[in-house]
């Protein structure tokens, strides 16, 4: 059940460009599932009142630690980056519904863009734990905005059982400074032609996720997508985070998502 938990910053370091990584000690780490998120109260300035919703890249239930990778884009994330080891605050979580395993047996394709990567890495861990094989496409604007240690984690996760096929981790940049020149969607066709994937998982900018969903649909592959919304509460109390569905109804991103079946979303 979603609740309020204390957390203590263990490390909070600059990674590259505007991207930071925080590890913290918090009991929520023992309950949270890949794709779920936490809503963080950043101390220091009472004039910005809302919490900051963040996905996580790794949770260690035993040591009760959570790893958050985030871009500094404004007031709240900037204050978050100023938190020092030993500082404490609270987070609301676990929030929402996370990724689920593929309904069919077979290989999965992960497609991440920008800071959509952290929850996709958590998804990869879930798949590796369950013996599901996967390949990944990770895009960013430019070469030095890639989060190298998360790319390494994707490469180094245990291989699936009973298969010696090597995992592909394809890197793209919008400006061509590293890997494939283009968007992650440009790299999808090649991989999908070679492999009969049973499931696509995606998180990143809205335009990217819409494109990924379209390609998956064309090839008749199930697709899960983790959406972002401005949030008031993060636990279904304010109806501020509506997501329009193809049925014409609104779902709540923080409660019914953030992970949705891409088929249900009105892109």
């Amino acid at each position, binding site marked *: 059940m979603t609740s*309020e938990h204390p957390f203590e910053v263990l490390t909070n370091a600059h990674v590259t460009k505007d991207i930071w990584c925080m590890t913290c000690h918090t009991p929520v780490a023992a309950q949270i599932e890949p794709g779920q998120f936490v809503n963080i*109260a950043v101390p220091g300035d009472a004039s910005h*009142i*809302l*919490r900051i919703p963040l996905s996580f890249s790794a949770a260690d239930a035993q040591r009760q630690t959570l790893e958050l990778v985030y871009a500094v884009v404004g007031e709240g994330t900037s204050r978050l980056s100023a938190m020092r080891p030993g500082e404490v605050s609270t987070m609301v979580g676990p929030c929402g519904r996370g990724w689920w395993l593929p309904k069919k047996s077979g290989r999965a394709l992960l497609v991440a863009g920008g800071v959509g990567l952290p929850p996709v890495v958590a998804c990869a861990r879930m798949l590796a734990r369950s013996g599901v094989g996967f390949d990944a496409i990770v895009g960013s604007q430019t070469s030095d905005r890639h989060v190298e240690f998360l790319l390494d984690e994707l490469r180094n996760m245990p291989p699936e059982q009973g298969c010696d096929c090597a995992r592909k981790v394809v890197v793209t940049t919008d400006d061509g400074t590293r890997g494939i020149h283009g968007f992650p969607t440009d790299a999808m066709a090649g991989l999908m032609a070679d492999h009969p994937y049973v499931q696509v998982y995606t998180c990143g900018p809205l335009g990217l996720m819409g494109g990924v969903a379209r390609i998956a649909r064309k090839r008749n592959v199930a697709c899960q997508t983790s959406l972002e919304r401005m949030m008031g509460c993060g636990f279904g*109390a304010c*109806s*501020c985070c509506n997501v329009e569905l193809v049925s*014409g109804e*609104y779902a709540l991103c923080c409660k019914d998502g953030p992970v949705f079946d891409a088929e249900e979303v009105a892109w």
Partner: protein
Amino acid sequence: MVTKSNVGMDVDLGGIAMRNPVNTASGTFGNGRQFEGFYDVGSTLGAITCKGVAAEPWKGNPVPRIAELGGSAILNSVGLQNPGVKEFVRQYGTYLQGLRDKGCAVICQVAGHSVEEYVRAMDLFEELAPFASGFEINISCPNIAAGGAAMGATPQSAAGVMRAVRGHTKRPVVVKMAPRDVAEIGRALESEGADALALINTIPGMSIDVRTRRSKVCRPTAGVSGPAIHAIAVRMVWECAQAVGIPICGIGGISTVDDAAEMILAGATAVSVGTANLYDPTVAARIVRGLEQWASEQGVSHVRELIGAFEC
């Protein structure tokens, strides 16, 4: 050390018996259940006010519905998304009856686009919601095209809604007021049989993203709430309390025990915590404890002695 005080905390909001003065503002508390992971709602609060519900489902407004404004305020334009009375009762009836059983009053909020729609929703609630301790008529939502704030804009239109619904329930009726002409409109509502008043709803406001030149939410104007509006709300509660004899539930920017106490001194019988629930989900429970402490420090034997006890 905290010693248990012997101050009486129960209040009567126009026939709605509350074990303590703390209520929640409609639309900021889900329908209670969302907060069960934070504290035991039924054995803690004096009352909860549910999200506004109409006779038929309303879809609500498109994205984005909320923006952080800085300056301790947010802007929202939810537009009263709700599943209609029948579905609301199906989803929450059992839970809300459970709150009643634990001693927490349940106020169901009634929404409509026209006088007829309020009456239709009221009739459905009367029939399907035995768990409701009373009803709150929302004539102050700034985020819908018809009804809402337009219905509460003048003493005549507000009185018209109250007159129409009055004959349709014997349970207490609270009216949720917009932040305008509260003395005059309050008097009109009282004379049509309102049992209590709740104020204020959000203050109409605007916020423009200067780079994109677009509104930060889905409509040009929306509702401002949060600690920034508290002083305005206290002033309006005080003005209204001078003008009417029925009890008032004070709402607006309450985020601390002192904020709640201020409302009571200004003349509020009960207080509703709103926006603060969203970013500080245990705040209403802390205000329950803190108000008792405050009343005890004030040396009164009952919190009722502090209602309107503001000394100019």
